[in-house]
């Protein structure tokens, strides 16, 4: 978890409300990633960023948007939360030729 801070760590929200999760890194890594983790599905990539203002979709991007205005910050937004977005969200940094990734501690999100 060193060098990567996710906030909040826990959040409960209602269906239809917007939610923003924040990831902050001190490692100066170029690449940042957002994953969701659900039982039976492992980790699935939502979106990733390869630089400031450079982002791309992962395999489960519907209903999510991201922004990266600074190297150290990567935001994940659920524009209108749904119960299917109840999950644990992980931010990771990495990249390079081997792409070893470093993970934050996660955010547990419950959408009621």
């Amino acid at each position: 978890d060193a060098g990567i801070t996710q906030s909040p760590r826990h959040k409960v929200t209602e269906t239809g409300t917007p939610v923003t999760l924040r990831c902050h890194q001190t490692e100066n890594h170029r690449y940042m990633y957002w994953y969701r983790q659900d039982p039976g599905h492992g980790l699935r990539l939502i979106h990733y960023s390869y630089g400031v203002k450079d982002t791309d979709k992962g395999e489960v991007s519907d209903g999510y948007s991201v922004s990266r205005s600074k190297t150290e910050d990567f935001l994940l937004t659920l524009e209108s939360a749904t119960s299917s977005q109840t999950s644990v969200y992980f931010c990771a940094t990495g990249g390079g030729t081997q792409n070893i990734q470093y993970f934050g501690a996660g955010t547990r999100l419950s959408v009621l």
Partner: protein
Amino acid sequence: SQQGEEDPQALSIQEGENATMNCSYKTSINNLQWYRQNSGRGLVHLILIRSNEREKHSGRLRVTLDTSKKSSSLLITASRAADTASYFCATLPGEGAQKLVFGQGTRLTINP
């Protein structure tokens, strides 16, 4: 879709025994990585094996890779209670790729 499929999904052994987990994947890879996740925490990188390597060691960890069978195994020798965690394989599909594809993980329990 999940590139890595892990087997078994859960494994319970006695302290001191060896633990073996397997990972199969579908497409060609640049490297394969193993991560550990303790309960309630983020993933931590354990070991990486390149596509042109067959075996790699790190402490009590031994990883093998068989690219002809598109499979890898992680062996933990002389297990300890602290090894209780979930273990995930992740593949980097192709040189220059920047997205890891994670398997669903193996839940390992070490009984005292």
